[in-house]
């Protein structure tokens, strides 16, 4: 398979929306309960940008550099194997040059620090990200102001930012639009909100688009994903 085909099969295409010319200064949110593959989807989102020769910053709160790097390596390997990608080695090396991981200890994360770091990176000509994924951001403990600040940053730096959030259980914790806690009061800040759910008696994962302009993709509001590669599964429709 060629690189181009791979790009098209990526579910993120459908989230970003082809008609949506302006990809930048958007915020997206991936929600799921623990263990369903939020990080995997974030990596996939990053991978999509990387495949398109754009640069990505991966912010990981509470996970080590090596572990985060492993996510990319494993994911790439799985995809390359599953899709029989041509010259995988070369593509891997070239896209990984466009990726930058910044890790924070759980207690040390702050918006100001992150902003400073990003400015440094751009100034030093190390990387000029087009997409940023933030994994392990604590939605329970942070207040709205931080996210508003992030939004502001997305605008000034011309960035697309994707977050992951663990859903917490609770009966009346869903917002009107169906966004589960802890993000039920924050959905206005995000352009896209998706929820990952396991499909009963199937090895696929359901990607439900709760909010987003790209919701009208040709596949409707639900995409079925292969849990290993997070690619769209045609045979599972």
């Amino acid at each position, binding site marked *: 398979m060629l690189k181009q085909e791979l790009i098209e099969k990526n579910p993120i295409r459908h989230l970003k929306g082809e008609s949506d010319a302006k990809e930048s200064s958007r915020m997206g949110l991936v929600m799921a309960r623990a263990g369903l593959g939020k990080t995997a989807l974030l990596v996939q989102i990053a991978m999509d940008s990387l495949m398109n020769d754009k640069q990505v910053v991966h912010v990981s709160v509470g996970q080590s550099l090596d572990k*985060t790097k492993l996510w990319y390596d494993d994911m790439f390997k799985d995809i390359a194997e599953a899709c029989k990608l041509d010259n995988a080695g070369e593509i891997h090396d070239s896209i990984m040059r466009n990726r930058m991981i910044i890790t924070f200890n759980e207690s040390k994360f702050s918006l100001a620090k992150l902003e400073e770091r990003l400015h440094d990176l751009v100034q030093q000509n190390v990387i000029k990200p087009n997409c940023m994924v933030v994994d392990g951001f604590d939605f329970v403990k942070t207040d709205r102001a931080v996210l508003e600040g992030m939004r502001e940053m997305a605008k000034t730096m011309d960035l697309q930012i994707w977050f992951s959030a663990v859903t917490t259980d609770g009966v009346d914790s869903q917002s009107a639009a169906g966004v589960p806690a802890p993000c039920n009061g924050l959905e206005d800040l995000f352009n896209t909100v998706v929820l990952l759910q396991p499909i009963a008696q199937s090895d696929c994962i359901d990607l439900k688009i709760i909010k987003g302009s790209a919701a009208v993709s040709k596949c409707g509001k639900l995409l079925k994903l292969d849990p290993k590669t997070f690619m769209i599964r045609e045979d599972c429709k």
Partner: protein
Amino acid sequence: MRDITKVRNIGISAHIDSGKTTLTERILFYTQRIHAIHEVRGKDGVGAKMDSMELERERGITICSAATYCDWKDHAINIIDTPGHVDFTIEVERALRVLDGAVLILCSVGGVQSQSITVNRQMTRYRVPRVAFINKCDRTGANPDRVIKQLREKLALNAVPIQVPMGLEGDMQGLIDLVRMKAVYFDGENGDKIREEEIPAQYQEECDIKREEMLDAVSMFSDELMEAVLEGTPTEEMIMAAIRKGTLALEFTPVMMGTAYKNKGVQLLLDAVVSYLPCPTDVENFALDLDHEEAEVKVSNISSDPLLALAFKLEDGRYGQLTYVRTYQGTLKKGDSIVNVRTGKKAKVGRLVRMHSDDMEEIDEAGAGDIVALFGIDCASGDTFTGGGDYNFSMTSMHVPAPVISLSITPIDNKAQDNMSKALNRFTKEDPTFKTFVDPETMETIISGMGELHLDVYVERMKREYKAEVTVGAPQVAYRETITQRADFNYTHKKQTGGSGQFGRVAGFIEPLEEGEYEFVDQIVGGSVPREYIPSCDKGFQKCLDKGALVGAHVTGVRCAINDGASHAVDSSDIAFQLAAMGGFKDAYLKAKPVIMEPIMKVAVEGPTEFQGSIMGSLNQRRGMIIGTNEEDAYTVIEAEVPLSEMFGYSTDLRSLTQGKAEFTMEFATYRQVPKSVAEELIAKALKNKKQ
């Protein structure tokens, strides 16, 4: 046998010129290991460092020996030398492994300097509990409070003073112990008479405040103390227990102060070493189970268990070869036989000694957790000894990475030649990653190791310790070649000019091998190549692997298969088939799209946050692929993968880029194909060399 809870294995680490030698001397004096104090600093007050080395040599004391033993208040203290080269990982790693706790010495004027930062970080990595000692409080400009602040900010330690100095600089009288609330004076010519009195009135207020702060900090580690503090009745024992608990957990660093030169505070430091630093059973050490893929197993620290001991340092002393070992469990007895796990060789424990500063004591046995020296044991440092039997454990990983860089060295004269071979012999024993051989083509001696600095250190040591002056060639990176696709061959070797002829034909293919270096596949059916000549083909292929056709580098990752051939009843021979296989390989090799691979190093640069931009820039310049950054308190760790060939001279660059505040470590990561432009350069260079 000695009570293991009364053993302390400690390291003393310090920035250059913060008084490590003086302090060590005083410790040995107060523990009655030496009987007179000699000053490091000469009367003219210059060149302290050189003086100390001369002094050691002159008096033959072994302050810098690997381990020195002394007694303090019925506790045994083994002081282990922490190497001066912080960059030199294998040696540092070994030293840090064998110590259970450490004293961090800081100069009250200089404060936390870059080397302290490095050492501290390494100790954190190896989870070594430590106490801090602010030395040189008699110097002009002494400011312990500022140093404590630096300990907190730069080293991110929870540093809390447990003493208050009575006067600073020239008029330092003594110290106030905040745990016991007593003023301590050090009388006598050598400060050896300790006098305790009530706290002088002018210090009372300051001490009350500082004690309050200390109690606040340490009561975090003990509920009992917390309650007692609230009730206003904390006892000495409670406070000491809480300090110990916090220190062992690496969450608290008690800070002491004094001046070793003016003989103040050293005895209190020794008390603290005994009270707050761990004994061998307080820390967890792990052995690797060689029967189960090097799984980690906690060592028991029990003297009656099977023996497990690590040789951490070899020394060529006045007494012959000494091997310093630390026992982790079991007992090392004179006359016992022990087994070197790496080589499987048995040896008998001849003489077992405890090293003192200027002499040694013969002992009969050493229990778990102790550090002793052995005579006449042939081993390399880093080797593990067990009592034999099925007990197959190792303290260090058996996996030794292949060297990635090499240098040619040439001795300047005959004397240097002798010394050089002595030195090389020793170094290869000490360090398994250091290798040496003679290049059969140029007849030069080649040394190879894990990095530029690694080899630099050995060349320097050759000069200093063995007086072997050598000239050093330019460092060579160990490139490799491999093939990227399958290619067939069909080669006939024929020679019929005079004498017996040679004939052999082999056909087959070579293809990339996913894992491993080389594989030979025999697919001959019907005996087109006679059985006896099949190993000859294998041999022929292997001969081709030494030098690839591109740049003459070692060829790896090749599967060679033969599936057809022909022979002659008279003219076929072993050599004929070897030559046929070599011819076939050479034919197929260039068709198989060979590429050059270069060693890629995983580089981690740690430095203050403000320099992270320029550090990244420097890595980018060197074809580095930046993987990411990790934000710690005041500094950032940047990880990148950089080709080794681009890392030459990086330490100098980095130093000038960051005012010496950043350091980097690198280790071999993998081999990766070199970019086209670089490959062309390398091939052109190889061609040029060949022509010459």
